[in-house]
């Protein structure tokens, strides 16, 4: 079990991923005005944000991940559940940005939030890999993806005994702050980190594959 409250400087943000999500093929291609918006927003988030993660050892009983996810978890000797979040401070700041009414800034801030949440998951993974060094650690898998029903969020959250990094679930089992990730990870000698997400998705009309599609 580990729990951590961080600052933005503890995270390794992949800025190129933010631009890739916007559709730009590489970090040099965005125009200066877009880079300036992203950098300005990062400066705004940096002093206020406190991303957090928490993970616990648990079981897969009572949860219903399917197909690709079960394959990704195979070889498990232990299962870990985690919650990672960009934090309420991020949520409050992006709410203020939304109130300002600039759709370009809101769009960029949303993508930055996604990257903060993903970078927080990466820190969580680093902590797990350090705590379980010498054994295999799987990728992280989340309800809502690859056929894993979102309602399992209730069971996952119930196992944290209230220590959920300030993340709550609404009636639809969606997390708040919005930029939060929950999920499962397996550890064990036979566990491998299998490709997941974009690496195995063949969806041709996904926005992340748009440029590849056009070039063909």
């Amino acid at each position, binding site marked *: 079990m580990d729990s951590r409250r961080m600052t933005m400087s503890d995270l390794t943000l992949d800025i190129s991923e933010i631009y890739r999500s916007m559709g730009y093929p590489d970090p040099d291609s965005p125009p200066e005005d877009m880079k300036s918006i992203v950098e300005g927003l990062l400066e705004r988030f940096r002093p206020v944000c406190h991303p957090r993660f928490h993970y616990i050892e648990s079981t897969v009983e009572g949860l219903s991940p399917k197909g690709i996810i079960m394959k990704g978890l195979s070889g498990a000797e232990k299962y870990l559940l985690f919650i990672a979040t960009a934090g309420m401070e991020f949520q409050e700041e992006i709410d203020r940005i939304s109130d300002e009414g*600039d759709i370009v800034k*809101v*769009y960029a801030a949303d993508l930055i939030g996604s990257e903060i949440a993903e970078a927080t998951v990466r820190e969580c993974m680093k902590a797990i890999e350090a705590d379980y060094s010498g054994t295999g650690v799987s990728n992280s898998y989340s309800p809502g993806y690859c056929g894993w029903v979102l309602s399992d969020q209730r069971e996952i959250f119930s196992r944290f005994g209230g220590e959920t990094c300030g993340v709550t679930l609404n009636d639809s089992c969606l997390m708040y702050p919005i930029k939060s990730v929950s999920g499962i990870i397996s550890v064990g000698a036979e566990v491998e980190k299998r490709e997941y997400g974009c690496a195995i998705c063949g969806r041709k009309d996904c926005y992340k594959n748009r440029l590849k599609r056009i070039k063909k």
Partner: protein
Amino acid sequence: MAEFPQLHDAILTGNMNNAIAATKEAVASGAEPGDLVNNYMIKAMEDIGAKFEAGQAYVPNLLMAARAMKGALDVLKPMMQGSGVTSMGKVLIATVKGDLHDIGKNLVASMLEGCGFEVINLGVDQSDQKIVDAVNQHHPDILALSALLTTTMGNMKVVIDALTAAGLRDSVKIMVGGAPISEAFAKEIGADGYSANANEAVALAKSLI
């Protein structure tokens, strides 16, 4: 007749300040709001859409153009009441129950607004009942539904079934979109159309009106 290429160019390049200034100058020189909207502003949005389709522009370019368009439209709005300038149609847009993703939906909403549609944005995590109530209240020409998750895309059919049960299905065209959605899925659930991105959504909405 006076021409205002600077207004078209300001929107095409997403420069809101220049778009507002060009609109004010055009109005001061006696231009008709309807002429500015139809011949320069909507044309610029169509042009940025074409560049996007060709891979020469990105989502932020679409958003910046829509923002510039909105700034220019705000200048014209006080003059447009009773001027005979009508909207392209009314669109009600929502992300379905169980899904908090709103960036794609908001991008579609901004593009539709920029291209002359009246848009009512219901927000995210909207139940079938809330959407049925809103259709009943606003009488939109088009209902646009968004979902990003494979686990929530099924709620689009729940909404369509609820509209049918409420006797409203034939009163509104339904278009769907979102990362897991496909043309085949749209047909399967009985939607009238599917678009893969915000630019296609505008073309689809025009074709459904």
